């Protein structure tokens, strides 16, 4: 299956993209995607405790199982206002 990964702010700078398609095994979770990305981007792995995830614009935890065409956003701590 395919998903889209969106990255913002500090995460976007580490990954070097705002959005990218990713091919995954069926049944993959948010945590699986994060694990894959952390192998290539060590700095991202170090940020793990502070990161938040959203699938299709709803916050979720890393156990969330992904479906084909889901949009996974990886978000650093927010600082609006």
């Amino acid at each position, binding site marked *: 299956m395919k998903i889209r990964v969106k990255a913002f*702010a500090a995460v976007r700078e580490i990954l070097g993209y705002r959005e990218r398609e990713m091919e995954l095994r069926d049944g993959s979770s948010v945590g699986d995607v994060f694990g894959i990305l952390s192998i290539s981007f060590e700095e991202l792995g170090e940020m793990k405790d*502070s990161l938040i995830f*959203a699938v299709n614009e709803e916050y979720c935890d890393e156990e969330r199982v992904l479906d084909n065409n889901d949009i996974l*956003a990886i978000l*650093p701590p*927010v*600082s*609006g206002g």
Partner: protein
Amino acid sequence: MIRILVQADPIDVEEHLKDLGTREDGALVSFIGRARSRSRDKTVTHLEYEIYESMAEKELRRIAELVSARWPVTDILIVHRYGRVEIGESSILIAVSSAHRDEAFQSARYIIDTVKKTVPIWKREFYDDGSMWVSERS
């Protein structure tokens, strides 16, 4: 009425406030967050906000709907900037109207506190000698 706006343009506060509330509303509370020139013992030259626009709009609306379920308020307005914000400019405008002042004050306070915790918007501070992403915790 709930009105949510995210925009790159400066916020015209007067223009937004004049349409809010009804003849039954005795209170209109507004909060304006502005870009300030000092932070972390450094001189800030300007800010840049990055936004997950579609989700931020959804979250802002969710907060407004929660407020309107919890307090007897009439109108709720939230306007948030993104992109470059100059020192002294408004980055956020929150306004709540209600019959009495207590619920308007409480709602406005709840909205700004919650926006800072849950809405996917990120602030980058620029200084004379560099820049950094900031968060409430840092």
